[in-house]
């Protein structure tokens, strides 16, 4: 989920006229001092991290003098919490608090409606408040068609003992928060505390906002880099994978590392799942077999072969793994030969040095297994393909057998890019380029590339040379599905004059760094 930092959340609710403290996000002490001098009143400093309980770890501090401010600022900038380094601090006016409330809006999945939560006691966790002071808490659903009117909120707030101006003002703020929640596709929006100040203002002293990942595209102004929840900053490899995911809408691709540096303990394997449920079931089998997944990957939703290829290349960028396991539900509706060809291209390029078990059960599984057998296993690689009638547990037993007593630890190779001769015939696909060296094609009698492409009809023969049968624009837009069949056919049944280049931005440099580091 795309979580916003406190200052980002406050920027959002400010647009809906929710009062927030006068403040500034500061990246260095000079900025903080400048703000303090202008404000001329005590301030609070808050680290900007997704972490509750910041006070306990010294992430929230108060300052009344320039010296105090500078000293706290320097201390706090050095902090590291859960792998995140503090790189900015929100400096705000210190509020004169009369009362603290809690106000939040979340999506209640059970009722499938927004749920407003309010407590006339705030500051601590809402769960504690509800336990200790149930009378202070109200919650009510909102009909998303009717929306939230101020009277609806007032009717509920009186139950918690609110009255007078604070009743009216608080209800007004909650309605504005609801508008922000709706407009920005929030999964949750909480202010804890919502503060009633001595001078009678109702101010959001804190703000936690989580945007729905699937709606981030509607809110480009938020500048969310990776619309996904990470318990820590994303690793370099995860960023590379995310760029692949983002740049190709066909099918799903998800990659997360369980460990950034795989220990050479002979237990870690690269994991390549397909589909949420099937991946989980397959991970259970890994776990039951006493092995550990180094990463979690999911390519599903009928991805093109090129996407599976890139996923495999990224998984094989993790050194020290002793095996590779791909498995989904086993009875996939997607066309499994695409995945098979993705694996073939990746494993051949990588000259894969560890055993792999690929369970590609489902639609066209016979063809998928045949592809693996023919182009990997028969070529001497330790690769086994299975279908729906082989369980994940059986696959893991096979993988462990293949690993043997003394497993091989995967070594990451430099990325080798195909360098075409200057005058090769070439065309672009959705995410890559195809090069055909017609000088090689002259000696090729079979022309297996044409047969391999017959399903899509992108290639045709012209004066004995394979060329595009369709408009370049159409091909680039997706008429070529990047199924990789032509390249594999050319390599094994032709003369090897056809090459498909599917770049992965940043992977070459990443691997160079890794190899340098391990030297």
């Amino acid at each position, binding site marked *: 989920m795309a979580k916003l930092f406190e200052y980002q959340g406050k920027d959002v609710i400010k647009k809906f006229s929710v009062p927030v403290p006068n403040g500034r996000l500061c990246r260095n002490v000079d900025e903080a001092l400048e703000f303090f001098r202008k404000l001329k009143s005590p301030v609070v400093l808050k680290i900007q991290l997704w972490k509750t309980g910041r006070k306990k770890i010294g992430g929230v501090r108060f300052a009344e003098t320039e010296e105090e401010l500078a000293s706290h600022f320097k201390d706090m900038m050095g902090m590291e919490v859960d792998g995140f380094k503090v790189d900015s601090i929100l400096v705000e006016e210190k509020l004169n608090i009369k009362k603290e409330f809690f106000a939040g809006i979340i999506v209640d999945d059970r009722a499938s409606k927004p749920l407003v939560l309010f407590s006339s006691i705030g500051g601590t966790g809402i769960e504690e408040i509800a336990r200790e002071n149930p009378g202070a808490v109200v*919650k009510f659903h909102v*009909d*998303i068609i009717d929306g939230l009117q101020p009277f609806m909120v007032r009717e509920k707030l009186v139950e918690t003992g609110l009255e007078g101006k604070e009743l009216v003002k608080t209800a007004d703020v909650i309605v504005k928060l609801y508008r922000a929640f709706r407009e920005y596709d929030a999964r949750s929006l909480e202010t804890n505390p919502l503060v009633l100040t001595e001078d009678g203002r109702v101010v959001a002293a804190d703000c936690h906002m989580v945007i729905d990942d699937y709606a981030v595209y509607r809110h480009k102004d938020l500048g969310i880099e990776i619309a996904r929840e990470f318990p820590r900053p994303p690793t370099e490899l995860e960023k590379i994978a995310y760029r692949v995911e983002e740049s190709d809408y066909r099918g799903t691709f998800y990659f997360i590392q369980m460990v950034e540096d795989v220990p050479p303990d002979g237990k870690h394997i690269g994991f390549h799942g397909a589909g949420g449920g099937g991946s989980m079931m397959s991970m259970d089998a890994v776990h039951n077999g006493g092995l550990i997944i180094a990463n979690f990957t999911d390519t599903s939703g009928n991805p093109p072969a090129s996407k599976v290829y890139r996923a495999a290349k990224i998984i094989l960028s993790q050194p020290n793994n002793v095996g590779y396991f791909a498995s989904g539900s086993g009875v996939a509706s997607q066309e499994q030969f695409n995945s098979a060809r993705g694996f073939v291209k990746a494993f051949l390029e990588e000259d894969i040095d560890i055993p792999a078990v690929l369970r590609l059960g489902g639609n066209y599984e016979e063809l998928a297994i045949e592809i693996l057998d023919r182009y990997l296993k028969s070529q001497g690689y330790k690769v086994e393909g299975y279908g729906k009638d082989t369980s994940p547990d059986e696959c893991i037993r096979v993988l462990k057998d293949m690993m043997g007593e003394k497993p091989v630890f995967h070594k990451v190779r430099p990325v080798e890019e195909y360098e075409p001769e200057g005058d090769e015939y070439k065309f672009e696909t959705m995410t890559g380029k195809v090069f055909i060296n017609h000088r090689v094609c002259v000696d090729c009698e079979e022309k297996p590339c044409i047969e391999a492409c017959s399903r899509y009809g992108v290639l045709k023969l012209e004066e004995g040379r394979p060329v595009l049968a369709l408009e370049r624009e159409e091909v680039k837009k997706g008429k070529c599905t990047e199924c990789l069949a032509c390249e594999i056919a050319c390599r094994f049944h032709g003369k090897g004059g056809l090459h498909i280049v599917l770049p992965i931005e940043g992977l070459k440099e990443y691997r160079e760094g890794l190899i340098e580091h391990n030297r």
Partner: protein
Amino acid sequence: MSIIVDSTTRVMVQGITGREGRVRTKLMKEYGTNVIGGVTPGRGGQEVEGLPVFNTVKELVDNLGTPDATCIFVPAPLVKDAALEAIFNGIKFLLIVPDRVPLHDVLEIKAYAERFGARFIGPNTLGVLSPGKGVLGMIGGRAKTAREWFKQGSVGVSSRSGGITSAISYYLSREGIGLSTIVHVGGDAVVGLPHPEIMKMFQEDPETEAMVMFGEIGTSQEEQVAELVKSGVITKPIVAYIGGKGAREGTRFSHAGAIVEGGRGTRESKIRALKEAGVRVVDEFMDIPKAVKEILGK
């Protein structure tokens, strides 16, 4: 009998001229589903698989009568519009296939569906299939494989994972256990008809003798099923499996989420609730067919 779809269900396809729409229309037709036509705004007058294409749902309804169900295959950002178009035109059952539909759009669709007395499966669903009768969506991939994999019988399947819907159904069929209807409820946090609703439908279906439910961590769907069993609303036997044993504990919801769910949503809490209600929970996925056989006394 079966639930949601059989050979008499009149089905339209929204987004019928798109890549997915075309392929899945072919699958549905070849499997025997009664697909009557489709809609793609701006493509009225064309034909797909010999079926008429209309610009609007209203046009289709005026020409062919109101379909019983629609299958939506438009891109995620356009789903809300397509779903509301169907609901406002009186269609009472929607299958929403696309993944990544914004949550607030789903909330709106659900609110309007309730107002108009419509129901929907999805989003992010592979679909619904009643063996030998009909399929909505894309279960099986091709009619040939769908026929091979899924045998007709009396066990209802409901799953939160698409692949697992097919997997459970195939492994049951392989063991000689036939199926009444198989349902992928959809993978998202908020779906139209979650497990408890599907279980109630199976309860009322005379052909269904027992149910299999595949659950996952997150949401309170499985706990709700446990409540229905406990309170006697559901009396037919259920075999349940909850995935995610090896999954690392994710950061789950906000604090406010916890107060609503009251500690629900973990694998352990789901298993506990189901077992307490007397539901048969199996520990290994591959034990599902055996457990179903025992329950059916086969």
